[in-house]
Every structure is written in structure tokens, then in C-alpha cells.
């Protein structure tokens, strides 16, 4: 394993984007950063700039206005990039399946590495998903 990959796994930086979820998963992503769960102790940092990020956390079913934004964020992230769909509605559309303005799942727009089902997901599940996603990074050669 190259030193670059090794350090990437030790300190992945997250970018969180809300694509139209109900806020439930979004606050659980934030809750994972705060004292009880505290993912910062694993070197995971939540940042707001796509060009700094390794992992993209997306919540919510995509709608017509933000699909362009999501695509844009994804394209700005440097390689290797990982995408995690947080929550049932980010995976498949979930309860919003018959809402007219949703597309149903972020995998219609960008490729997804890890899906977390649950409505709303628990912070433990988010941490777990990030760890699984990092396993994929090990195989990355670049």
C-alpha cells in the first residue's frame, strides 16, 4: 500500500450534501460529529469544499433542481472519490417514491459505493458505512 493510500484511509474528509431529504439523516450526520459519537477521533473531518473531500455523503431523493448541483459537486471532487447514499430515500426514493418532483435515488445521477438503508439512519450506521467505503480505497491504484 502506498503511503498516499495509507494516509487517505487514516484521515478521510467528508462532504455532506442534502439532496432533498427530510433533515432526519442530515442531523444524524451532524450528530456523528458531536461528543457522543465523535467521528473526528478517527480523523474524519466534515468540510464544506468539494475539492478537499474524499467521501461524499448524500441524503435524500434527488429532485430536478438539485441534480445539477449534485453532479457538479461529484465532478469537482478529486480522485479517488467515494459516494455514500445515506438513508432509504437516497438509496431508492423511499417514502417519496410517488412525489412528482423526485427522481428516486441518487444512483440515477452519480455512481454510489455504499448504500445505508434506514429512515432515519443511526449515526453508528453512518460511521460503519464510512469504514466500509474506506475498505474500497485500499484496492484503489493510482
Amino acid at each position, binding site marked *: 500500500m502506498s503511503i498516499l493510500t495509507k494516509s487517505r484511509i487514516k484521515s478521510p474528509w467528508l462532504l455532506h450534501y442534502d439532496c432533498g431529504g427530510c433533515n432526519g439523516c442530515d442531523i444524524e450526520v451532524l450528530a456523528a460529529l458531536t461528543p457522543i459519537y465523535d467521528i473526528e477521533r478517527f480523523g474524519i473531518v466534515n468540510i464544506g469544499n468539494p475539492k478537499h473531500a474524499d467521501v461524499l455523503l448524500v441524503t435524500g431523493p434527488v*429532485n*430536478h*433542481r438539485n441534480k445539477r448541483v449534485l453532479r457538479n459537486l461529484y465532478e469537482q471532487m478529486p480522485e479517488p472519490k467515494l459516494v455514500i447514499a445515506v438513508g432509504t430515500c437516497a438509496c431508492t426514493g423511499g417514502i417519496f417514491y410517488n412525489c*412528482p*418532483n423526485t427522481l428516486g435515488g441518487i444512483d440515477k445521477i452519480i455512481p454510489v459505493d455504499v448504500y445505508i438503508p434506514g429512515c432515519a439512519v443511526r449515526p453508528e450506521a453512518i460511521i460503519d458505512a464510512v469504514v466500509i467505503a474506506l475498505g474500497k480505497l485500499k484496492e484503489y491504484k493510482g
Partner: protein
Amino acid sequence: MSLEKEVVVDKAELIPEVQNLLAQKARYCSSTCLDLGDKFEIIHHFQLEDSVDFTKHIKVRINKEDTLPSISNIYLAATLCENEMQDHFDIKIIGLAIDFKKRFLRAKESPEFMLTKEKKEEVSP
């Protein structure tokens, strides 16, 4: 069951009625638009000062081709609700304080007028 304290007014009486409420220091709550098939029904909900209950629901019925005078120049708060109505229904509102031109919530590709009821087709036996 219909709403308590509802007042049905004509299109022309709407603005004077709302101005009257403004003079009484009523608080604007919300607006609802309904599709009755051949007509639109718009309900403006108001609440008087020093009262916790709803005080007045003003109902206006207009034909589908007709225009609706906006109350947003009297109550600025109504502008968002009226813009939302324009997004959801094929309704023409004139005199909006801030007009988003049917792009308030909708994006370009979003379905148009999603809450408008489709005309019931008569099923031939």
C-alpha cells in the same frame, strides 16, 4: 363539514375585504388553493389580534381562465403562498409583490401544475 367563520366573497370584493382586515390588525396565516373541476377556489386564512383562534377564512371562487388579484401588496407575507399557487396550479395572479414567474419551487424540468386535477373523462358504457 365546512370551515367555521368562512366568508365567500366575489373577486371584486376581495381587496376591500382584505384591506378591512388590515385596518383591524389581523394577522395573515396562510392561503390555500383548490381545484374544483371547473373553478379554482382560493381561501385566505386570517387571525385577529388578541385571539388565538382563526378569525376569518375568505373564500374566492374564480373561473379557470380568470385572473386573481394578489393580496401581497397589502400583506407581503402572502407573496410566497401566491407564488406557490402559481407553481402548483395554472392560475394567473396579477400584482405580485415578488414574482418568481412560476419558478418558485419548480425547476425547469419539474412537472407543471402538479396539483391541477385532470378532467374526468366520461366513460362510455
